[in-house]
Structures are given as structure tokens and as C-alpha cells.
């Protein structure tokens, strides 16, 4: 009774909400979203301004020239751009299939007693700082690559230029594998969440039609979650493209483009991390900022392409998640 009376007493107040509440909230939310756009635009403008000297001197040839000579002031971004793309490609090629299989296992096959601790371990891995991966890569993984993996690859696949050269342990391949290990927990954990959200009724319909576990996984679960899983890959891709410390430790850091994956190379992020602090010459600094601009544009292009790809996926596979 008392609670009822209390409720009726409070009611008039609720009936007259402050008239400016909603518009204010809408305005604040829009301002926050607008600020984000503004920041992105400001970063772009600042990058272009910072790279003016370099843009004026090298023009578009900056993109496809391999030279990087701080002494004579001759700069080109080819080796950095190629290194960024190749290391990311290796990382994605290794991490995406593995993540998909792990996520499917955790959601579809594993008993909860296994799925829970494994899931927790994966989330824990995602929280490891990148410098730890870098140090582990340099001190533990690179020697392992030099002593076992690279000699093995050279012996079996040495006829390909990709796997030739002295086994130093560091280089493009090692950097790609470390990157794969770093993005694996991210992709896996998001994919697992996506697959979990596929409605049981959809899967049960599949089983009801006599499908095997594999058929349901391939044709129902994965298809239904395609959009979400593409998002997971995008998350991993974003991290791989911009990863700095871990790559710097193991990639070998030189501005040359080698045919072999065993060769040392560099990425845009690693070049910036290495050289920014001591670059005193204005043109040198400007070239480094232009590298940052290129990375900005690469990230933008990847985002754009992925959106187009996802839209196409939706058209062929239905909306799903």
C-alpha cells in the first residue's frame, strides 16, 4: 500500500520531463561523434602539413622509390610500404584460418570444461603487451627459427627465392609469424563471440535436415556469422598493420627490399619508431611524417575495401549477424 502511494506521489514529476533533456543528450552525442570526425580530419591535415617538404621534393615517386639515405637526403617509401603489406599478409594468412578453427572448436565441439579455460587463456593472451612479444620473439623465437624452421624451409622449399638466404632467425617471415601470434587471440575471441550468437534454432534446423557437424559449421554457422567474422579479421588486420615494437625487434630493420622472406626488412611503423627521435634534419623529419601519412592512407584504404567486400558478402550470403 505504502509503496503504491509513494509511486503515485512521484508520478506527476515523471509526467513532466525536463523539456530540454532529450535535445541536450542528442546534441552531446552528436558533438562527441563529430569530434571524432574532426580529430581524424585534423590528423590527416597535420600529416599533410608535416610532410610538405618531402611531398614537394619527391612527389608521388616517394611511393615507389627504394632509396632511404638520411645523409644525402634522398627518401623513398617502397621498402617500408612493401614490408608493412608483406608482414601483414603473412600474419593474416596464418592467423585467420587458425582463429576460425579454434573458434569453431570452442563453440561447436569442445565440452565446457575445456572451452572455458581455453577461452580465458586466449583472452589473457590478448592482454599481453606487444613489447613482451617482441622480446620473446628476439630471444626465444628467432633462435628457434634460425636453428630449426629456416633450415627446414630452405631444404624443402629452397628452390623458391622466397626461402633462400642465410638463416638469421630474424627477418620478414619471423615478423609475420610474431604478428600472427599477436592478432590470433583478438580474432579468435571475437569470432568465438560471433559464433556463439548464431541462434541455436538455425543450427538445429541444419541438424534436423541430417547434416553432419562439419556441414552445419561450414554452411550454417560460418555463413550466418560471416559479417561478424569479417569484422573480427578487420580488428586483427588493424593491429597487424600498425604494430610497432614487436616488429621492430625481429624484422631486422633495413631499408632494402629482398626477394626472400628470410631477408631483413622494415615496416612503416618500425621505421618511425626507430628514426623519429634522432631525425633533426627538416627534410628527413618530413619524409618520416610522410611515411605516417602513407600508413594513414593504407589503413583507410583497407577499411574501405573491407566495407565493400562485406557488403558483397551480405548480398551473397544474407544478412546474418
Amino acid at each position, binding site marked *: 500500500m505504502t509503496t503504491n502511494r509513494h509511486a503515485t506521489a512521484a508520478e506527476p514529476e515523471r509526467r513532466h520531463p525536463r523539456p530540454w533533456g532529450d535535445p541536450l543528450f542528442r546534441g552531446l552525442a552528436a558533438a562527441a561523434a563529430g569530434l571524432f570526425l574532426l580529430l581524424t580530419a585534423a590528423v590527416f591535415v597535420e600529416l599533410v602539413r608535416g610532410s610538405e617538404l618531402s611531398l614537394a621534393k619527391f612527389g608521388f615517386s616517394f611511393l615507389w622509390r627504394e632509396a632511404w639515405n638520411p645523409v644525402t637526403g634522398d627518401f623513398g617509401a617502397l621498402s617500408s610500404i612493401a614490408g608493412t603489406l608483406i608482414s601483414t599478409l603473412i600474419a593474416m594468412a596464418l592467423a585467420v584460418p587458425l582463429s576460425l578453427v579454434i573458434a569453431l572448436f570452442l563453440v561447436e565441439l569442445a565440452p565446457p570444461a575445456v572451452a572455458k579455460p581455453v577461452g580465458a587463456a586466449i583472452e589473457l593472451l590478448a592482454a599481453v603487451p606487444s613489447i613482451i612479444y617482441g622480446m620473446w620473439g628476439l*630471444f626465444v623465437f628467432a633462435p628457434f627459427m634460425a636453428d630449426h624452421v629456416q633450415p627446414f624451409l630452405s631444404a624443402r622449399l629452397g628452390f623458391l627465392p622466397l626461402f633462400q638466404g642465410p638463416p638469421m632467425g*630474424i627477418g620478414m617471415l619471423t615478423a609475420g609469424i610474431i604478428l600472427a601470434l599477436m592478432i590470433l587471440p583478438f580474432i579468435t575471441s571475437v569470432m568465438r563471440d560471433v559464433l556463439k550468437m548464431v541462434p541455436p534454432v538455425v543450427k538445429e534446423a541444419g541438424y534436423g535436415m541430417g547434416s553432419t557437424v562439419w556441414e552445419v559449421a561450414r554452411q550454417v554457422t560460418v555463413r550466418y556469422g560471416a559479417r561478424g567474422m569479417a569484422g573480427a579479421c578487420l580488428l586483427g588486420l588493424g593491429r597487424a598493420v600498425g604494430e610497432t615494437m614487436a616488429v621492430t625487434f625481429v624484422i*631486422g630493420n633495413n631499408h632494402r627490399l629482398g626477394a626472400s622472406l628470410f631477408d631483413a626488412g622494415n615496416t612503416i611503423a618500425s621505421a618511425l619508431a626507430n628514426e623519429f*627521435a634522432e631525425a633533426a634534419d627538416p627534410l628527413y623529419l618530413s619524409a618520416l611524417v610522410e611515411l605516417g601519412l602513407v600508413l594513414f592512407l593504407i589503413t583507410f584504404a583497407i577499411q574501405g575495401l573491407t566495407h565493400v567486400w562485406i557488403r558483397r558478402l551480405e548480398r551473397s550470403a544474407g544478412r546474418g549477424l
Partner: protein
Amino acid sequence: MKKLLAAALLILATLPAAAADLTGAGATFPYPLYAQWADSYKKLTGVGLNYQSIGSGGGIAQIKAQTVDFGASDAPLTKAELDAAGLVQFPMIVGGVVPVVNLEGIAPGALKLTAAVLADIYLGGVKKWNDPAVAALNPGLALPARDITVVHRADGSGTTWIFTNYLDKVSPAWHGKVGCGKEVAWPAGVGGKGNEGVAAYVQRIKGAVGYVEYAYALQNKLTHILLENRAGKFVAPTQASFQAAAAGADWSAAPGLYLVLTDQPGDASWPITGASFVLIHREQRDAARAKSLLDFFAWCFAEGDAAASALDYVPLPDDVVALVKGVWKTGVKSGGAAVWK
């Protein structure tokens, strides 16, 4: 609330005035030593030092902008650059850059190299350890037929500047193709991040040759080599040989104390020696503060040698210290009067 405020004020009042603390920024190489000196000096006098190790380039920019009391750089500025910015520079400590190798069966100090061969290795011309050029210098050594992997710094650094300055001086081929800088277009090899990165690569890669600061070679027990100096003698990297290079140099003939200690004369001189420099403004705004800064440096020269040696840095020889103090006397003024008397 009031009590809390009163307590906070009390704590603030008992702290030594932060304004008395000296500020500096620049090179990372001398940072551990500057920090150690500052700590001892604060205990002794109450005057602290806030040193930011942001890199030589940053240090030069900060002192030019007058945001710090002094800047620190591993590479000296030329007389013209100093005059343009109204700065005075002087060396603070000496350090050596040491080529190190990873070769099975080769003990530290066993392998001998000349400047020309070292330059050829870094140019990528000498590719194997049993190359005749290396073998001719080391008749008694069993050199393996291993590929040479050149390791250099990936980040811009004063260490690279000293090392390339040396190669640039002694090898016409290096001068023509690469030159001298904190970061250069390396013709060969792989790059490690920082001294520790180079040390790690050299330890991991069989057949590697790299260059690191003396302290890193010592602490990581890397295999150093003997290098031929200007007098034609093969010398080992030691505190004594770095000091010999600093002492053998003719500082008094160097305008603005612009002197790079690479390839200096003297039988005992280590050829890849360098000094770490301090930059201060010629015209000081606050005479008392400037005096307190120079007092600190004078104390470092007088009492800081043991701390320097313990951290594997090399103190300046006494006659160079005397020269530095002469520069303070004539070069640093506040309102027309000399700060250091």
C-alpha cells in the same frame, strides 16, 4: 577538508623548492651516469637535476628553445652552429664504440682488423670471415668459412654517428658511398634497435659483426676485436685507450671544442672514441642559477670519476677538464659579467 588542505600545504612547505632544481635534456648514452651524479649531488647539496633522456636531437632543440638549463649531445655542434644559436659546448665524459663479433673459436681480443677492412666489411665487399683480407691480418687464427652478417643500429643514434664518422675519416670508399650521420643508408646487414638490440643480434647470429658502446660490450661479455689505430698499432678497447685518445687530441686547437675523438694520434689511442657533450647558453639570464649549474659540472669533474668508472664510462683527462673550465670563464656570461671566476 580544511585539515587535509593544511596537511598538504605543510608537506609542500617542507619539500625543497623545486625551482632550485637544474634541468637538462638530450642524449640517452650518458643518462645513467648523469642520473647517478645528480643523485649523489642532491644528497650532498640539496640541488637536484631533472634530466630527460630524449635523444641528442631533442636535447639540441630544447636548449635552443631555452626550456632547459643545458642540452646534451653525443655529436658536437660546429663552431658556426654554436655561434648561430648563442651556445657554448664542452665535453663531459668520454666513451668508446667497440666492434664485436660472434665467431666460434675466436677469443675476445684475438681478431685483428684494420680500418680499411672494417669499412670493406660494412660496405658488403668482404663477405666471408676467411676472406684473404681478414686472413692476412690474422695469420695465426683458424678463421671459419662463415658468411659475415653485418649488424648496425636501426635507430638514429650518437653511437652510429661516432662509428660512421670513423669509417668516413679512414676509408675513402666509405666516404664516397655512405658518409657520416646518426642514421645512414647501410649498404649491408641488419639493424638492431638500441645498443641492446645490436648486442642481442650479434649474440644470436653466428658470423655476425656489430658495434656497441663499450659498456654494452663489457656487460654482455661480447667478443671485442683489436683495431689498428692511426699510429699503426693494434689496440684493445679499454678505459685507458679511450683516455689516451682524449688526451692525445689537441683540444686547444679546436674552435668551439668541436672535436671528434675518432682516429686520434698516439700509440695507445683507441680509434673509435667519442665524447658526450653538454650545451649551455653563452648569455645566462639568471647568474645564480648558471653558477649553480657550473658548480654541479665542476663537482662531477672533481668527484664523479669513481661513479663514472663504476658504470663503465671514461672520465675526461685532467688537462681537458682544465680547458673546459677555461671555456666557462671566458664563454659564459650573465649581464656582461663572467659566471665562473
